């Protein structure tokens, strides 16, 4: 068949053409039709590491049996892309959803991908994936036209079978068309996409595709991988991130039958065929440490963070701040504090590694399998091509599984002992090595004019980062600065690792901004919903806020009204979100209980409304934790929270009545859905507490003690 110069290339030629020098992952797919495509951009820092194709990083494969597979470096960790990506593919290609297989994150099968985070999978991935699927459909239609001897415009497709519109008995299936083919084609982007009124699968609620494995216990997570001869490792850990080891005696561990002890510089581990015996052996190791004294703890950290903060980067400015300040009738100078948070996924980090000679096979719980591959290759001193990572199911990530320390540890130990090794962190290790959401400070000076309108806004965020720092209200004179990054650490900043936590930075920024807006609304004697609407020119945000107020049954009243109603707005990952909450405060104890949350989101086109709703519910529920209770306790680099006894995450009894609305914006590009709703939870609860008891809590989490303290000042 020669209808197009692209269609007669065999895979080998095509690979040479795109300079894909590594072993051919396409070999594993067998015959059929392949559409190569580019998802977003391949970052420059990724290109330098190894020979990478620059014109594709994902592909879909129509196999000779008619099954369709999507090969992508993204991973599934509960957020539901295994379902939403399959929906997009099935709809554009006109095949049944259950004929689509997802091959995700395997570094030998899938093209390079930087990782799964930032609510990127659906919004960046969606348009090119749909274009590739549409292209696949176009190729198959052309082939069907040739095979049936009918013009393509007289044909139609249903469930992977091409029919003649006028006579359904004249037909040919995708399987028949793919049989014996070896076609690889790069998506040209010319195939037309379906419009929302043509969607059959996109925009339709679909339950999770991986649920059966998960409810039957068949789903394999990293720690569930068991290889013949595998040893379970437990690693000696210091009491603090600042500790230096001064002595070591492993003789006690060696006396336990079957225990192997490995010492390799900083890495001291005990290994056994049973994890609990390895655990016992670890307790027999005697080690002493020098730990420098530190007066940093969860109370003193904020002064320290301000002291070490660099000059800020301007995130946005308009008007003249000085002029605004001098003309303001009322000014409000406030400081907001936010503590460290753990990701605390239910699955602690785990990995199985099998290093044989100069080859490594690794199964890690990871949001970033390709960076893990590079890191392991560097550590072991072997070529990246010799490291094969297969990510199993991931038991929650929230940003925390972008760090692959446990996978590197497993690979090192496997190399040293010559056997497959499993490293599965305990809950205590998970808390100790977590890259926490950073503690942060926000200072806001803002003012109203004589008519109660916002006149100026001077915003400085320290160490939360830029995401969500820029406000979206109409304020004539405004300036926003971000001091220090919310990502990673500069030495001397935090006493332990920090990193991206679900909607990084935005939870802190939205708490501060929405609290400040509320303070001004209250001072102006204006209802907080009305005050916001008066200062919003963005139609999208106006609409989500109005919809939330309507759904909630909001009636205007200036705060504090005693009702315990709060409101907060935010933007994240391209999505606009508004939340309204009802909170009950126990006046004797200060304990706040959230009774009801209404949340409205405009996230553009929604691929799986069911999945998007679940993400919103998850955000609201998880957000209760950082808003009300979660706070890492520490002394210098020693993390004092070691388990869920002191680090309280949301429970069933915390659950408010949750009502979610997704604005129908099907003609707009899809935006992020896994994070936006969580950013409103601190602000909406703080504002509802103020409305209930007139107490303004300036620090998250909004614990009973802090509410009580604020009530004394109110």
């Amino acid at each position, binding site marked *: 068949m020669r209808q197009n110069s692209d269609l007669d290339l065999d895979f080998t030629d095509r690979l040479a053409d795109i300079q894909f020098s590594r072993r051919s992952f396409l070999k594993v797919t067998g015959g059929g039709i392949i559409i190569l495509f580019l998802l977003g951009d391949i970052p420059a820092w990724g290109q330098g590491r190894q020979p990478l194709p620059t014109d594709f990083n994902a592909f879909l494969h129509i196999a000779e049996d008619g099954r369709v597979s999507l090969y992508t470096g993204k991973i599934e960790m509960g957020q*539901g892309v295994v379902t939403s990506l399959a929906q997009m593919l099935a709809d554009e290609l006109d095949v049944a959803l259950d004929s689509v297989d997802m091959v995700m994150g395997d570094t030998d099968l899938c093209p390079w991908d930087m990782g799964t985070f930032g609510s990127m999978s659906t919004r960046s991935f969606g348009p090119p994936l749909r274009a590739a699927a549409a292209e696949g459909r176009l190729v198959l239609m052309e082939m069907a036209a040739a095979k049936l001897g009918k013009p393509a415009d007289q044909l139609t497709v249903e469930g992977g079978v091409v029919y003649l519109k006028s006579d359904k008995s004249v037909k040919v299936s995708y399987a028949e068309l793919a049989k014996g083919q070896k076609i690889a084609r790069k998506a040209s982007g010319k195939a037309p996409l379906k419009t929302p009124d043509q969607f059959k699968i996109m925009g339709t609620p679909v339950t999770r595709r991986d649920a059966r494995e998960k409810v039957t216990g068949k789903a394999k997570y990293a720690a569930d991988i068991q290889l013949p001869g595998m040893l379970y490792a437990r690693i000696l850990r210091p009491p603090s991130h600042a500790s230096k080891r001064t002595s070591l005696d492993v003789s006690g561990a060696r006396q336990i039958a079957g225990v192997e002890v490995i010492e390799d510089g900083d890495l001291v581990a005990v290994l056994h065929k049973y994890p609990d015996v390895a655990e016992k052996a670890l307790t027999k190791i005697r080690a002493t440490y020098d730990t420098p004294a530190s007066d940093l703890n969860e109370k003193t950290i904020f002064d320290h963070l301000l002291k070490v903060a660099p000059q800020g980067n301007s995130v946005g400015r308009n008007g003249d701040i000085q002029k605004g300040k001098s003309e303001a009738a009322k000014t409000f100078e406030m400081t907001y504090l936010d503590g460290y948070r753990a990701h605390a996924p239910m699955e602690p980090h785990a990995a199985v590694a099998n290093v044989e000679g100069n080859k490594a096979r690794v199964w890690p719980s990871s949001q970033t399998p390709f960076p893990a591959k590079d890191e392991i290759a560097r550590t072991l001193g072997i070529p990246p091509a010799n490291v094969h990572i297969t990510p199993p199911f991931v038991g929650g990530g929230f940003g925390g599984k972008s760090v692959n320390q446990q996978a590197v540890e497993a690979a090192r130990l496997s190399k040293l002992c010559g056997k497959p090794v499993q490293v599965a962190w305990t809950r205590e290790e998970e808390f100790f090595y977590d890259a926490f959401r950073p503690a942060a400070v926000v200072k806001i000076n803002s003012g109203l004019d004589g008519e109660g309108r916002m006149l100026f806004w001077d915003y400085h965020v320290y160490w939360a980062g830029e995401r969500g720092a820029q406000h979206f209200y109409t304020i004539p004179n405004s300036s926003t600065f971000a001091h220090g990054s919310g990502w990673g650490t500069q030495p001397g900043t935090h006493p332990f690792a920090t990193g991206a936590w679900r909607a990084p930075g935005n939870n802190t920024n939205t708490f501060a901004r929405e609290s400040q807006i509320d303070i001004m609304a209250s001072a102006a004697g204006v209802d907080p919903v009305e005050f916001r609407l008066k200062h919003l020119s963005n139609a999208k945000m106006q609409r989500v806020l109005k919809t939330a107020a309507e759904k909630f049954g909001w009636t205007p009243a200036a705060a504090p009204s005693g009702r315990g109603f709060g409101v907060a707005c935010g933007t994240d990952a391209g999505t606009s979100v508004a939340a309204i909450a009802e909170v009950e405060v126990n006046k004797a104890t200060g304990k706040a209980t959230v009774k009801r949350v209404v949340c409205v989101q405009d996230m553009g086109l929604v691929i799986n409304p069911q999945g998007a709703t679940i993400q919103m519910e998850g955000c609201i529920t998880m957000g209760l934790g950082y808003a009300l209770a979660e706070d890492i306790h520490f002394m210098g680099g020693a993390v004092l929270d070691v388990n869920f006894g002191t680090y309280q995450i949301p429970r069933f009894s915390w659950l408010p009545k949750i009502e979610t609305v997704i604005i129908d914006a099907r003609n707009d590009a899809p935006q992020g859905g896994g994070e936006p709703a969580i950013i409103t939870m601190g602000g909406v609860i703080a504002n509802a507490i103020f409305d209930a008891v007139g107490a303004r809590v300036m620090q998250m989490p909004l614990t009973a003690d802090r509410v009580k303290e604020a009530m004394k000042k109110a």
Partner: protein
Amino acid sequence: MEELIKFTLNGKPVEVTADGDRMLLWVLRVDLGLTGTKYGCGESYCGACTVLVDEKATHSCMTPLKMVQGKSVVTIEGLANNGEMHPLQRAFMENDALQCGYCTPGMILHAYELLKKHPNPTEGEIVNGMEQNLCRCGAHKRIIEAIQAAAQAMKGV
């Protein structure tokens, strides 16, 4: 000390020769290969390791093997009956009562005990019954709905 422990596992008799002080969680996962039972905290805070011991929801991470001598243990792998999923498993699927799925086996087995005690549970009874099981993805709302749906489906069974 190694000893012979005999118990019923998912309806079948098993014999394990092992140190009776080892925790059931590790014996199930490693010695017996049933990895559906998860480690979450190791100290009975999270419920991810929940199994049924004589129909009672039990944290296997804090249950020494010798405690199940002569008893009946059911793990998530044994809840289906001849390949037919338990109504709770179906309800969790149909209600999307899970995201990452790591807490799911423990949730389902704890809910099993709950429905034994309260075949027609109120929302308050579900909340109280499930309070010790942690979920980080925030699937709580749908887990409650799934348990309600399973209770309906189990009526008259």
